[in-house]
């Protein structure tokens, strides 16, 4: 469980986050969305104690991150993947971190195998591709078997197979009861992975709800209606909150009403309906609408 309580942080004159509050619960994957510059990285850095907030507190499982006796076992984080000394080997990098917590080589090798870096583990990290660097970052995040996994753009640079692997990994971690907090710009992937969303913009909280609710709240949810007597049906449905977009003479997209409402209205007026399909907004559309 992560708690962000009313945190504010300035960098010089810029306000990066302002009175931000939310809780991230265990057992599900929570997505962290926001445009560039919204304050996502800042928020994660505040949670990890890398930066100090001007006001407010962040708690991980009830305590500030810095006060845990084994912090890497509380939160495993991937911020920017380039947090590695390029002259060092992947294995030595992970080993140096593991040793601070008394975790041994066996676990390091296990993580290297898990992320598929076995063949390159002894080579300089400076020679890694973007995808390999990301996988090393994921290995680092999981190194001490953390209760909370916090990842910033984990699928950046991964091929489709890698993206699917991360998705399954995150869902598996959440199913084990861990807290999983992931930020990403890849909306389609987020829609498949996350159950809950925290959306921020310009340093402030915009939305904190399930993915289903978030998508449902988008105004681009419409119902495709095809009817031989479409104009009559549209007349019957007219209301200030109803939008109608004509596509063909007998096909329209109607917004502001549910499919049930349209179907019932058609039945009440004995109008035949040949197609009645709810079209849900994509996560991307909902997000764009909310953050404009």
């Amino acid at each position, binding site marked *: 469980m992560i708690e962000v309580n009313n945190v504010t942080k300035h960098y010089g004159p810029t306000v990066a986050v302002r009175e931000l509050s939310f809780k991230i619960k265990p057992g599900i994957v929570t997505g962290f969305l926001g445009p560039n510059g919204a304050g996502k990285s800042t928020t994660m850095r505040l949670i990890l104690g890398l930066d100090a907030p001007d006001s407010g507190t962040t708690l991980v499982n009830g305590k500030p991150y810095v006060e845990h006796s084994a912090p890497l076992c509380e939160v495993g984080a991937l911020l920017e993947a380039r947090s590695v000394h390029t002259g060092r080997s992947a294995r030595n990098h992970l080993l140096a971190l593991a040793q*601070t917590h008394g975790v041994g080589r066996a676990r390091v090798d296990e993580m290297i195998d898990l992320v598929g870096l076995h063949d390159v583990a002894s080579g300089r990290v400076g020679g890694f591709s973007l995808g390999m660097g990301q*996988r090393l970052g994921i290995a680092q995040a999981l190194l001490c078997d953390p209760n909370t996994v916090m990842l910033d753009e984990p699928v950046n640079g991964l091929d489709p197979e890698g993206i699917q692997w991360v998705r399954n990994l995150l869902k598996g971690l959440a199913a084990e009861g861990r807290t999983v907090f992931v930020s990403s710009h890849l909306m389609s992937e987020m829609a498949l992975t996350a159950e809950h969303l925290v959306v921020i913009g310009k340093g402030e909280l915009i939305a904190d709800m399930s993915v289903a609710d978030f998508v449902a709240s988008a105004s681009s949810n419409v119902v495709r209606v095809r009817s031989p007597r479409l104009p009559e049906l549209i007349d019957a449905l007219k209301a200030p909150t109803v939008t109608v977009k004509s596509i063909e003479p007998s096909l329209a997209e109607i917004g502001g009403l549910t499919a049930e409402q349209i179907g019932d209205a058609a039945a009440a007026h004995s109008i035949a309906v040949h197609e009645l399909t709810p079209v849900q907004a994509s996560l991307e559309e909902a997000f764009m609408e909310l953050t404009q």
Partner: protein
Amino acid sequence: MSTTTVAPSTGVKSAGVQSPGIRFSGVLRSEWTKLRSVRSTIWSLGVAVFFLIGLGIVGCLVVESRYPNVRHDFHPLSQSLAGVNLAQFAVGVLGVLTITAEYSTGMIRSSMCAVPKRLPVLWAKALVFGAVTFAITLPAIVIVFLIGQSILSGHDLQVSLSTPGVVRSLFGAALFLTVMGLFGLGLGTIIRTTAGGISALVAIVFVIPPILQAILTTSLSNDINPYLPLSAGGSIWTINPDSNTLSPWAGFAVFCGYAAVSLAIGAVVLRKRDV
């Protein structure tokens, strides 16, 4: 490099990891792993050893070959220790790099997430770096001493280990280099960039003292001169000091003071600033 990477396995990570929590012994082990696993360490220490042994031997060979034209201020020990003056650069740079390389590569984020109390990392770096530097430079100094003195014995110019002050000088030279490196570590922690840290080290040790001596009155200059880094530090390993230097261990204590102050300021800055 060629990358034939295996596709990542799809298994969810396996059962738990036993961690006793962060302990200082673990942080020490971690810093030793960091120090030994990058090439810059080997290079810097290799260069230091090269200067120590190489210049010392060359110095003694030159004296031998010029005999009986021996300089009036010649002392056999300082010939053997001629390399210390250059080795101090190599060691100082390594001290700076030990911390600034983490900032320049972003590794500092990983380190500070692993040890969010931060200061144990600095103290562990100081201990590991200090121990390694001392352990490498002392044997090199003893070796160059023995070889150099055996060269000089051709014309009976040598001193031996039993000559008063020699053992202290040899030991002191290794201590001097170690503390110079720690001074670099402190400055690097404060300034956080490699170029800045090295510039500060060079400025404080080599550039500012001559400037002070040039602009201050003679009496003021004479008063502060023994406390300047090279004079203070030099009192423990140089022979034939001029009369205006501190006694060996007093001078070394002052030199340690430079390193201690830089590390203390570095610790405060490390603790308080955003990473």
